[in-house]
């Protein structure tokens, strides 16, 4: 892997981030409706309103506001949330671990389900399991994450399945004085298996909702690239060498099929992260996605800004990881 390649990708991320910041600024300054008006009761005097406008810098010209905004961003200052009256950076960083843990759980589930389906489909090529895999993945794919979330809730409600929680992150009966917001990790380190189990259980349905559509995509892409790889000349040669089918799939085809799969999974993973916005809301899961919807409804400009930028950084990081994984998978990328 050439360091230059990575460095170039990193540098390219900078203008992307700047672009995101500019668009967020423009978008949020043309909001009709005064966020300040929502912030205070009907009894406030014009002087009070004016004071608040000055506090949030909303009384200046657009250009001044932009300069101020960029300057703040560079210093890592995202401002103060209007609705929650806390530092945005603190708020977001506080909740981010919750969403990160959820997304990681989701991608693990998605890879497990998708990978199993794909390999099964390729191994039993041309027989009924393959058609079954195609049908199942097509069906899963047609239902977006938030509908899965609702369907799971429906399922739990109809069958009165009380064992599966459908809201929150940790059972109210458990007391856990966390040092960080990485409950899953922290409970493991501190050997609080009651906490670990409860967090995992609360995470199950939201993570599954997020994972299912991605798992279907992984199943499809991996299966078709495996099938494609299985028609290559080097696979033919491996057959002539006398290797068994399972060994050919594993040794010859899999690694070559992973490159397109990883590319697509990377892009789709960002959609999964974006999906937390609704899924967390539906399951009252206290991550940054949930926070985002409230921020929009409350027209909490600084908070929206902070959250959108956080998501953008997250997405760019995922894409960088994907780029790096190419080098591991494809020897041709290691030089040059």
């Amino acid at each position: 892997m050439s360091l230059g390649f990575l460095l170039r990708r990193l540098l390219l991320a900078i203008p992307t981030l700047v672009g995101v910041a500019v668009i967020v600024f423009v978008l949020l300054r043309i909001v009709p409706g005064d966020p300040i008006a929502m912030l205070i009761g009907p009894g406030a005097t014009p002087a009070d309103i004016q004071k608040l406008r000055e506090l949030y810098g909303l009384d200046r010209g657009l250009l001044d506001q932009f300069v101020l905004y960029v300057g703040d961003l560079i210093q890592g200052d995202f401002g103060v949330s209007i609705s929650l009256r806390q530092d945005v950076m603190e708020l977001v960083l506080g909740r981010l671990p919750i969403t990160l843990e959820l997304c990681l759980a989701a991608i693990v589930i998605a890879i497990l389900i998708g990978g199993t389906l794909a390999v099964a489909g390729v191994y039993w090529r041309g027989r009924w399991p393959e058609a079954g895999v195609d049908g199942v993945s097509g069906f899963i794919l047609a239902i977006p994450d938030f509908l899965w979330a609702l369907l799971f809730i429906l399922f739990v409600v109809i069958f009165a399945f009380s064992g599966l929680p459908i809201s929150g992150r940790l059972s109210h009966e458990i007391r856990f004085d966390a040092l960080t917001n990485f409950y899953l990790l922290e409970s493991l380190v501190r050997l609080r298996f009651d906490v670990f189990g409860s967090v995992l259980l609360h995470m199950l349905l939201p993570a599954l909702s997020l994972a299912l559509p991605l798992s279907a995509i992984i199943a499809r892409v991996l299966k078709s690239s495996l099938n494609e790889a299985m028609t290559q000349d080097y696979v033919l040669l491996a057959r002539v060498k006398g290797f068994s089918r399972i060994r050919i799939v594993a040794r010859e085809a899999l690694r070559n099929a992973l490159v397109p799969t990883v590319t697509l999974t990377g892009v789709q993973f960002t959609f999964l992260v974006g999906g937390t916005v609704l899924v967390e809301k539906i399951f009252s899961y206290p991550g940054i996605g949930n926070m985002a919807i409230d921020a929009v409804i409350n027209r909490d400009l600084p908070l929206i800004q902070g959250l959108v930028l956080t998501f953008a950084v997250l997405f760019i990081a995922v894409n960088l990881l994907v780029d790096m994984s190419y080098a591991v998978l494809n020897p041709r990328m290691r030089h040059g």
Partner: protein
Amino acid sequence: MSAILDIRDLHLDIVASRRRNHILRGVSLDVRPGEVHGLVGESGAGKTMVGKVVLGIAPPTAQVTGGSVRFDGGEITHMPDRARRSLMGAGLALIPQDPMTSLNPARRIGDQITDVLRLHLGMGAGEAGERALALLRDVHIRNAGRVVRQYPHELSGGMRQRVLIAIAFACRPKLIVADEPTTALDVTVQRQVLRLIKEMQENAGTAILFVTHDLGVVAKICDRVTVLQAGRVLEHGPARRVIEEPEHPYTRALMKATPRYDRPGDLLEPVPPALVDELNAAAAAYDRERAGA
């Protein structure tokens, strides 16, 4: 001397979306131990399919509808997969057509040679590694020690074909199917590779079924030749006889259609359409007769 490969009256159809195409119409040929047997024909003649049937890698849409393929005395036409796998490598091997796509891009050259040694000859990693180096030296790769650590994309086309030849000869098979092994190469490299194949073949005493469309290549490397057209054998015999005094009008026509720089006076004569029509009609008549029978 009994043949190492004996194909008798082989019939094969391709069945795709309810249509049945006859590809091989009663092909018979035999390859004797230690000879290079040319199987020559134009595209669509079915020559590649013969090689695939021998190796057991015909596509799933292909159906053998008659005849037999015997290898080293044993019937292998409808051999089950598992039994065939033990035959591959050690008994039968392939030199493929396209060196650019026939090596796995994600695996080192060394691993792609040692895996077959370990599978069939039961060698350990160290022994197989040594043997791979020796094989690469046999195919006149000068820097074998470095090449085993490289990936296919780091080698030129000619080098890759040398590696593939090394793989084919790795387990000293009795028969190698060479499927247009030099078609994808430049002429200067082609000559080197042809010589290499001949040298390896003579040293190991291996028989080769050499599939090609090029009468020039046949003339240079083959001991005997079978000419195929529309899935039927038109003529066969010693290479010198077929090249110098072709019996069948089609073979003669092919010779006349082949351009040669040393005879600028000769005008190229395309294969007469009437002859092609006649042969196709004969093939169709054969199909009808067989369907009726």
